[in-house]
Protein backbone atom coordinates (compact mmCIF):
# COMPACT_ATOMS: atom_id res chain seq x y z
CA UNK A 1 0.00 0.00 0.00
CA UNK A 2 1.23 3.47 -0.89
CA UNK A 3 2.64 5.69 1.86
CA UNK A 4 0.25 8.54 0.98
CA UNK A 5 -3.31 8.12 -0.27
CA UNK A 6 -5.08 10.94 -2.05
CA UNK A 7 -8.51 10.59 -3.57
CA UNK A 8 -8.57 13.77 -5.66
CA UNK A 9 -5.51 13.15 -7.84
CA UNK A 10 -6.40 11.99 -11.36
CA UNK A 11 -5.45 8.33 -10.98
CA UNK A 12 -4.24 8.08 -7.34
CA UNK A 13 -1.01 6.68 -8.77
CA UNK A 14 2.01 8.96 -8.96
CA UNK A 15 3.44 7.00 -11.87
CA UNK A 16 0.18 7.08 -13.87
CA UNK A 17 -0.28 10.83 -13.29
CA UNK A 18 3.37 11.40 -14.24
CA UNK A 19 3.04 9.42 -17.48
CA UNK A 20 -0.32 10.92 -18.41
CA UNK A 21 1.04 14.43 -17.96
CA UNK A 22 4.00 13.71 -20.25
CA UNK A 23 2.05 11.81 -22.92
CA UNK A 24 -0.61 14.53 -23.07
CA UNK A 25 2.17 17.12 -23.38
CA UNK A 26 3.47 15.28 -26.47
CA UNK A 27 -0.07 15.15 -27.94
CA UNK A 28 -0.50 18.90 -27.37
CA UNK A 29 2.92 19.67 -28.88
CA UNK A 30 2.06 17.63 -32.01
CA UNK A 31 -1.37 19.28 -32.25
CA UNK A 32 0.22 22.74 -31.95
CA UNK A 33 2.68 21.89 -34.74
CA UNK A 34 -0.17 20.56 -36.88
CA UNK A 35 -2.27 23.72 -36.48
CA UNK A 36 0.73 26.05 -36.86
CA UNK A 37 1.79 24.17 -40.00
CA UNK A 38 -1.70 24.59 -41.46
CA UNK A 39 -1.71 28.33 -40.68
CA UNK A 40 1.73 28.78 -42.24
CA UNK A 41 1.13 26.88 -45.49
CA UNK A 42 -2.38 28.17 -46.17
CA UNK A 43 -2.22 31.20 -48.47
CA UNK A 44 -5.83 32.24 -48.42
CA UNK A 45 -6.91 31.76 -44.81
CA UNK A 46 -10.70 32.02 -44.83
CA UNK A 47 -13.54 30.71 -42.68
CA UNK A 48 -14.27 28.13 -45.34
CA UNK A 49 -10.65 26.91 -45.30
CA UNK A 50 -10.70 26.60 -41.50
CA UNK A 51 -14.02 24.68 -41.55
CA UNK A 52 -12.70 22.43 -44.29
CA UNK A 53 -9.49 21.68 -42.35
CA UNK A 54 -10.93 21.21 -38.87
CA UNK A 55 -14.08 19.48 -40.20
CA UNK A 56 -12.18 16.53 -41.67
CA UNK A 57 -12.58 13.31 -39.70
CA UNK A 58 -8.84 13.11 -38.95
CA UNK A 59 -8.72 16.61 -37.46
CA UNK A 60 -11.97 16.08 -35.54
CA UNK A 61 -10.44 13.04 -33.86
CA UNK A 62 -7.10 14.77 -33.33
CA UNK A 63 -8.84 17.89 -31.90
CA UNK A 64 -10.89 15.69 -29.56
CA UNK A 65 -7.72 13.95 -28.41
CA UNK A 66 -6.05 17.37 -27.91
CA UNK A 67 -8.87 18.84 -25.85
CA UNK A 68 -9.10 15.72 -23.66
CA UNK A 69 -5.30 15.86 -23.27
CA UNK A 70 -5.60 19.51 -22.24
CA UNK A 71 -8.15 18.61 -19.58
CA UNK A 72 -6.08 15.74 -18.14
CA UNK A 73 -2.82 17.72 -18.32
CA UNK A 74 -4.40 20.80 -16.74
CA UNK A 75 -6.09 18.84 -13.95
CA UNK A 76 -2.86 17.11 -12.91
CA UNK A 77 -0.98 20.42 -13.03
CA UNK A 78 -3.63 22.47 -11.21
CA UNK A 79 -4.11 19.73 -8.61
CA UNK A 80 -0.36 19.72 -7.99
CA UNK A 81 -0.24 23.52 -7.63
CA UNK A 82 -3.25 23.44 -5.28
CA UNK A 83 -1.81 20.74 -3.03
CA UNK A 84 1.52 22.59 -2.92
CA UNK A 85 0.25 26.02 -1.99
CA UNK A 86 -3.24 25.76 -0.47
CA UNK A 87 -2.15 24.38 2.88
CA UNK A 88 -2.95 25.11 6.55
CA UNK A 89 0.48 26.75 6.88
CA UNK A 90 -0.77 29.62 4.69
CA UNK A 91 -4.56 29.45 4.96
CA UNK A 92 -5.14 28.19 8.49
CA UNK A 93 -8.01 25.89 9.30
CA UNK A 94 -9.93 26.97 6.17
CA UNK A 95 -7.30 25.46 3.85
CA UNK A 96 -9.26 22.24 3.20
CA UNK A 97 -12.44 24.14 2.33
CA UNK A 98 -10.49 26.54 0.10
CA UNK A 99 -8.73 23.64 -1.66
CA UNK A 100 -12.06 21.86 -2.20
CA UNK A 101 -13.59 25.02 -3.73
CA UNK A 102 -10.46 25.54 -5.87
CA UNK A 103 -10.50 21.93 -7.12
CA UNK A 104 -14.25 22.07 -7.81
CA UNK A 105 -13.74 25.32 -9.74
CA UNK A 106 -10.99 23.71 -11.82
CA UNK A 107 -13.20 20.69 -12.61
CA UNK A 108 -16.11 22.95 -13.60
CA UNK A 109 -13.96 25.12 -15.88
CA UNK A 110 -12.37 22.07 -17.53
CA UNK A 111 -15.76 20.40 -17.99
CA UNK A 112 -17.20 23.50 -19.67
CA UNK A 113 -14.10 23.79 -21.83
CA UNK A 114 -14.23 20.14 -22.96
CA UNK A 115 -18.00 20.19 -23.59
CA UNK A 116 -17.80 23.44 -25.53
CA UNK A 117 -14.82 22.26 -27.61
CA UNK A 118 -16.47 18.91 -28.44
CA UNK A 119 -19.68 20.65 -29.44
CA UNK A 120 -17.62 22.96 -31.72
CA UNK A 121 -15.52 20.22 -33.34
CA UNK A 122 -18.38 17.81 -33.97
CA UNK A 123 -20.85 20.38 -35.30
CA UNK A 124 -18.57 21.59 -38.09
Amino acid at each position, binding site marked *: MALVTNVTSLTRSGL*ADFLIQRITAVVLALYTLCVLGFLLVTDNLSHAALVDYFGSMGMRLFSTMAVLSTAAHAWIGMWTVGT*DYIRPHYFGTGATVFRFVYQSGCVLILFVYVAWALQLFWSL
Partner: protein
Amino acid sequence: MQVSVYRYNPDVDEVPQMRDMSVDLPEGKDLMVLDVLELLKGQDPTLSYRRSCREGVCGSDGINMNGKNGLACITPVSEVVKRGKLVLRPLPGLPVVRDLVVDMTQFYRQFEKVQPYLINDQPPPAQERLQSPEQRAELDGLYECILCACCSTACPSFWWNPDKFIGPAGLLQAYRFLADSRDSATAERLSKLDDPFSVFRCRGIMNCVSVCPKGLNPTRAIGKIRSMLLHQGT
Protein backbone atom coordinates in the same frame (compact mmCIF):
# COMPACT_ATOMS: atom_id res chain seq x y z
CA MET B 1 33.81 41.08 9.10
CA GLN B 2 30.12 41.77 9.56
CA VAL B 3 27.98 38.76 10.43
CA SER B 4 24.21 38.80 10.51
CA VAL B 5 22.87 35.92 12.61
CA TYR B 6 19.31 34.63 12.96
CA ARG B 7 18.39 34.77 16.63
CA TYR B 8 15.28 33.29 18.19
CA ASN B 9 14.68 32.11 21.73
CA PRO B 10 11.02 31.06 21.94
CA ASP B 11 11.05 31.50 25.74
CA VAL B 12 11.90 35.19 25.42
CA ASP B 13 11.41 36.46 21.84
CA GLU B 14 8.02 37.04 20.27
CA VAL B 15 9.46 36.89 16.76
CA PRO B 16 12.82 35.87 15.29
CA GLN B 17 15.25 38.63 14.35
CA MET B 18 18.53 39.04 12.48
CA ARG B 19 21.25 40.39 14.78
CA ASP B 20 24.38 42.09 13.41
CA MET B 21 27.69 41.16 15.01
CA SER B 22 31.29 41.63 13.95
CA VAL B 23 34.34 39.39 14.22
CA ASP B 24 38.03 40.01 13.62
CA LEU B 25 39.39 37.40 11.22
CA PRO B 26 43.07 36.46 11.43
CA GLU B 27 45.20 37.81 8.57
CA GLY B 28 46.10 35.42 5.75
CA LYS B 29 43.89 32.59 6.98
CA ASP B 30 40.60 31.43 5.49
CA LEU B 31 38.46 30.26 8.40
CA MET B 32 35.57 27.87 8.13
CA VAL B 33 32.12 29.24 8.95
CA LEU B 34 32.06 27.03 12.07
CA ASP B 35 35.19 28.86 13.30
CA VAL B 36 33.31 32.15 12.87
CA LEU B 37 30.41 30.72 14.88
CA GLU B 38 32.85 29.75 17.63
CA LEU B 39 34.21 33.33 17.67
CA LEU B 40 30.65 34.68 17.84
CA LYS B 41 29.83 32.31 20.69
CA GLY B 42 32.87 33.68 22.52
CA GLN B 43 31.21 37.12 22.33
CA ASP B 44 27.71 35.88 23.14
CA PRO B 45 27.54 32.48 24.90
CA THR B 46 23.75 32.34 24.40
CA LEU B 47 24.16 31.79 20.63
CA SER B 48 22.96 28.24 19.89
CA TYR B 49 23.96 25.89 17.07
CA ARG B 50 24.74 22.21 16.64
CA ARG B 51 28.25 20.96 16.01
CA SER B 52 30.23 17.82 16.68
CA CYS B 53 32.99 16.36 14.51
CA ARG B 54 33.98 19.66 12.79
CA GLU B 55 35.17 17.76 9.70
CA GLY B 56 32.07 17.13 7.59
CA VAL B 57 31.36 13.63 8.83
CA CYS B 58 28.65 13.89 11.49
CA GLY B 59 26.28 16.25 9.62
CA SER B 60 25.36 18.21 12.75
CA ASP B 61 26.11 21.77 11.63
CA GLY B 62 23.97 22.11 8.53
CA ILE B 63 22.95 25.77 8.29
CA ASN B 64 22.04 28.32 5.64
CA MET B 65 25.00 30.56 4.76
CA ASN B 66 24.29 33.61 2.58
CA GLY B 67 21.26 31.82 1.15
CA LYS B 68 22.83 28.42 0.49
CA ASN B 69 22.63 25.36 2.72
CA GLY B 70 25.84 23.61 3.70
CA LEU B 71 27.96 22.30 6.55
CA ALA B 72 29.51 25.18 8.50
CA CYS B 73 32.58 23.11 9.41
CA ILE B 74 33.76 22.47 5.83
CA THR B 75 32.58 25.70 4.18
CA PRO B 76 35.33 28.34 3.92
CA VAL B 77 34.17 31.87 4.71
CA SER B 78 35.65 33.08 1.41
CA GLU B 79 33.33 30.73 -0.47
CA VAL B 80 30.08 32.16 0.89
CA VAL B 81 30.73 35.72 2.04
CA LYS B 82 29.19 38.42 -0.16
CA ARG B 83 30.21 42.10 -0.06
CA GLY B 84 32.11 41.48 3.14
CA LYS B 85 29.04 40.19 4.98
CA LEU B 86 28.14 36.72 6.20
CA VAL B 87 24.45 35.97 6.76
CA LEU B 88 23.70 32.87 8.85
CA ARG B 89 20.22 31.38 9.16
CA PRO B 90 18.88 27.98 10.28
CA LEU B 91 18.06 25.36 7.63
CA PRO B 92 14.86 26.60 5.95
CA GLY B 93 11.53 24.80 6.18
CA LEU B 94 11.97 23.11 9.58
CA PRO B 95 10.68 24.50 12.89
CA VAL B 96 13.33 26.45 14.80
CA VAL B 97 14.11 25.21 18.31
CA ARG B 98 16.47 28.08 19.06
CA ASP B 99 18.77 30.32 16.95
CA LEU B 100 20.39 28.02 14.34
CA VAL B 101 19.04 24.78 15.84
CA VAL B 102 16.10 23.22 13.98
CA ASP B 103 13.69 20.46 14.92
CA MET B 104 14.51 17.60 12.52
CA THR B 105 11.63 15.31 13.55
CA GLN B 106 9.82 15.68 10.21
CA PHE B 107 13.02 14.95 8.31
CA TYR B 108 13.71 11.77 10.31
CA ARG B 109 10.07 10.70 10.01
CA GLN B 110 10.39 10.71 6.22
CA PHE B 111 13.70 8.83 6.46
CA GLU B 112 12.02 6.20 8.63
CA LYS B 113 9.23 5.72 6.06
CA VAL B 114 11.61 4.29 3.43
CA GLN B 115 12.68 1.48 5.78
CA PRO B 116 16.39 2.33 5.62
CA TYR B 117 17.65 -1.12 6.48
CA LEU B 118 18.27 -4.38 4.65
CA ILE B 119 15.21 -6.62 4.27
CA ASN B 120 15.96 -10.20 3.30
CA ASP B 121 13.64 -13.09 4.09
CA GLN B 122 16.22 -15.77 3.22
CA PRO B 123 18.09 -17.46 6.09
CA PRO B 124 21.43 -15.69 6.60
CA PRO B 125 24.48 -17.63 5.40
CA ALA B 126 27.14 -18.77 7.86
CA GLN B 127 29.34 -15.71 7.40
CA GLU B 128 27.86 -12.89 5.34
CA ARG B 129 25.67 -12.08 2.31
CA LEU B 130 28.15 -11.76 -0.54
CA GLN B 131 28.13 -9.22 -3.37
CA SER B 132 30.17 -9.05 -6.55
CA PRO B 133 32.35 -5.93 -6.97
CA GLU B 134 29.84 -4.70 -9.61
CA GLN B 135 26.89 -5.15 -7.23
CA ARG B 136 28.79 -3.31 -4.50
CA ALA B 137 29.63 -0.49 -6.93
CA GLU B 138 25.89 0.13 -7.39
CA LEU B 139 25.86 1.56 -3.85
CA ASP B 140 28.55 4.16 -4.51
CA GLY B 141 27.13 7.68 -4.35
CA LEU B 142 24.25 6.43 -2.18
CA TYR B 143 25.65 5.09 1.11
CA GLU B 144 27.78 8.20 1.79
CA CYS B 145 24.82 10.34 2.88
CA ILE B 146 25.32 11.73 6.41
CA LEU B 147 21.71 12.92 6.91
CA CYS B 148 22.66 16.56 7.43
CA ALA B 149 19.31 17.60 5.83
CA CYS B 150 20.94 20.30 3.66
CA CYS B 151 19.29 18.82 0.54
CA SER B 152 15.75 18.24 1.83
CA THR B 153 15.60 21.70 3.42
CA ALA B 154 16.71 23.29 0.13
CA CYS B 155 13.81 21.61 -1.69
CA PRO B 156 10.59 23.64 -2.19
CA SER B 157 8.57 20.43 -2.59
CA PHE B 158 9.75 19.40 0.90
CA TRP B 159 8.89 22.88 2.26
CA TRP B 160 5.33 22.63 0.87
CA ASN B 161 4.67 18.96 1.78
CA PRO B 162 7.13 17.85 4.48
CA ASP B 163 4.57 15.33 5.77
CA LYS B 164 3.98 13.65 2.38
CA PHE B 165 7.00 14.15 0.10
CA ILE B 166 9.88 11.99 1.32
CA GLY B 167 12.46 14.52 0.18
CA PRO B 168 15.82 14.03 -1.53
CA ALA B 169 17.69 12.62 1.48
CA GLY B 170 15.05 9.97 2.18
CA LEU B 171 14.72 9.08 -1.50
CA LEU B 172 18.49 8.70 -1.87
CA GLN B 173 18.33 6.16 0.96
CA ALA B 174 15.24 4.53 -0.57
CA TYR B 175 17.21 3.94 -3.77
CA ARG B 176 20.27 2.80 -1.76
CA PHE B 177 18.22 -0.22 -0.60
CA LEU B 178 16.38 -0.69 -3.91
CA ALA B 179 19.79 -0.94 -5.61
CA ASP B 180 21.20 -3.35 -3.03
CA SER B 181 21.50 -6.88 -4.46
CA ARG B 182 21.10 -8.33 -0.95
CA ASP B 183 17.68 -6.74 -0.40
CA SER B 184 14.66 -8.87 -1.33
CA ALA B 185 11.84 -6.35 -0.68
CA THR B 186 12.15 -4.39 -3.95
CA ALA B 187 8.54 -4.87 -5.08
CA GLU B 188 7.18 -4.03 -1.64
CA ARG B 189 9.35 -0.92 -1.38
CA LEU B 190 8.31 0.28 -4.84
CA SER B 191 4.59 -0.26 -4.24
CA LYS B 192 4.82 1.98 -1.18
CA LEU B 193 6.37 4.77 -3.24
CA ASP B 194 3.83 4.84 -6.08
CA ASP B 195 1.59 7.64 -4.87
CA PRO B 196 1.39 11.23 -6.13
CA PHE B 197 3.52 12.63 -3.29
CA SER B 198 6.28 10.34 -1.97
CA VAL B 199 8.49 10.38 -5.09
CA PHE B 200 6.58 12.22 -7.79
CA ARG B 201 6.39 15.56 -5.99
CA CYS B 202 10.02 16.02 -7.05
CA ARG B 203 10.04 18.59 -9.87
CA GLY B 204 13.69 18.00 -10.71
CA ILE B 205 14.99 21.48 -9.90
CA MET B 206 18.16 19.93 -8.45
CA ASN B 207 18.62 22.26 -5.46
CA CYS B 208 19.53 19.07 -3.59
CA VAL B 209 22.44 18.36 -5.93
CA SER B 210 23.60 21.96 -5.75
CA VAL B 211 23.86 22.02 -1.93
CA CYS B 212 24.91 18.46 -1.00
CA PRO B 213 28.17 18.83 0.99
CA LYS B 214 29.16 15.27 0.10
CA GLY B 215 28.71 15.82 -3.66
CA LEU B 216 25.88 13.28 -3.95
CA ASN B 217 23.12 13.35 -6.56
CA PRO B 218 19.64 12.66 -5.11
CA THR B 219 17.96 13.77 -8.37
CA ARG B 220 19.64 10.91 -10.21
CA ALA B 221 18.51 8.45 -7.51
CA ILE B 222 14.94 9.77 -7.80
CA GLY B 223 15.12 9.28 -11.59
CA LYS B 224 16.25 5.68 -11.03
CA ILE B 225 13.32 5.07 -8.64
CA ARG B 226 10.94 6.45 -11.28
CA SER B 227 12.48 4.11 -13.87
CA MET B 228 12.07 1.14 -11.52
CA LEU B 229 8.42 2.13 -10.90
CA LEU B 230 7.93 2.36 -14.67
CA HIS B 231 9.40 -1.11 -15.22
CA GLN B 232 7.25 -2.53 -12.43
CA GLY B 233 4.09 -0.72 -13.50
CA THR B 234 4.10 -1.31 -17.26
